């Protein structure tokens, strides 16, 4: 399996309790995470809120100079757009000149532009293609990742900025010459809005530099338990020790948590 991200994909879970941010500690909901030794230009940041509250979190900036730390700014909001303290998970990755797998990332930083193709260090495509973003209606963006034509893989989307907008993925697929993703962005009321976002694409069977991981397209939002599509889901399994488990996609348990036995390649799960 190719290693998709270079000199360390890093991810941390920041719990509100015990967290000592140093970005804007006097303002609830705004944080700075320092990744030691990762200072540099470019890369991709993904953030997601953690916990049982209704908070959502986004990236509001990142940067730093090697050999110093990379500082990532995170902003969390209530559904109405009010800044709020929240735990979150933040992930940073930057391409490497020697060890890259198949994938792409792009910082879509021109939300009002009809169409543009960033060529800076915040845009990467493992095939060497130039990623392009085309704006449709308000808050709707089509992102083309040339050369990544395989069916499958997965996406991560995080809104960028300091206010309460959020973004998601509507759909994706191969056009035959590119991987095309449609991204939708909304304001705090749920209305479409133009805003910046970060997009990260993992080509099929790519998870991280660690080789271990999984992804799933949870496309059945009402089923109590189901096995996700093998085309859009992946589980690295274990390389040493439990060969029977390799390829098990896992069963997604919906909130109802019905205890329905699920037959998998690793046996029946309850």
């Amino acid at each position, binding site marked *: 399996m190719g290693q998709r991200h270079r000199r360390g*994909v890093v*991810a941390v879970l920041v719990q509100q309790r015990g967290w000592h941010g140093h970005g804007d500690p006097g303002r609830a909901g705004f944080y700075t995470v320092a990744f030691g030794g990762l200072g540099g230009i470019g890369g991709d940041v*993904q953030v*997601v*809120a*953690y*916990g*049982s509250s*209704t*908070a*959502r*979190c986004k990236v509001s900036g990142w940067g730093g100079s090697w050999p110093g730390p990379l500082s990532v700014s995170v902003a969390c909001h*209530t*559904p*109405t757009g009010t800044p709020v303290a929240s735990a979150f*998970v933040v*992930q940073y990755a930057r391409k490497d000149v020697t060890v890259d797998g198949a994938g792409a990332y792009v910082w879509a930083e021109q939300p009002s532009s009809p169409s543009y193709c960033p060529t800076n260090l915040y845009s990467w495509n493992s095939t060497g293609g130039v990623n392009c973003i085309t704006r449709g209606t308000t808050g709707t963006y089509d992102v083309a990742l040339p050369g990544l034509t395989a069916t499958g893989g*997965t*996406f*991560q*989307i*995080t809104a960028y900025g300091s206010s309460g907008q*959020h973004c*998601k*993925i*509507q*759909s994706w697929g191969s056009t035959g010459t590119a991987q095309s993703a449609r991204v*939708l962005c*909304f304001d*705090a009321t*749920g209305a479409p809005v133009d805003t910046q976002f970060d997009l990260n694409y*993992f080509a099929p069977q790519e*998870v*991280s530099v*660690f080789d*271990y*991981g*999984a*992804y*799933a*397209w*949870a*496309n*059945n*939002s*009402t089923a109590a338990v189901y096995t996700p599509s093998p085309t*859009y889901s992946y589980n690295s*399994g*274990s390389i*040493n*020790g*439990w060969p*029977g*488990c390799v390829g098990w996609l*896992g069963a997604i*348990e*919906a*909130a109802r948590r019905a205890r329905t036995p699920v037959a998998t390649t*690793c046996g029946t*799960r309850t």
Partner: protein
Amino acid sequence: MHTTAYGTGSTYCKVTGWFTPARGGTQAQAQCYDAAGNKTNSPYVGTYATKFLRGPC
């Protein structure tokens, strides 16, 4: 662990936890909301990466 809501509505999804259950493997939990913050069913994509093995499954 990361989640991104999928589909056309203004839903958003977050991670509520992930852990190693007794049977092995890794179990991740997500919760999705509508724009107003009400819990709702929503498709999403989830990704998980680790430096460590979690097994047996």
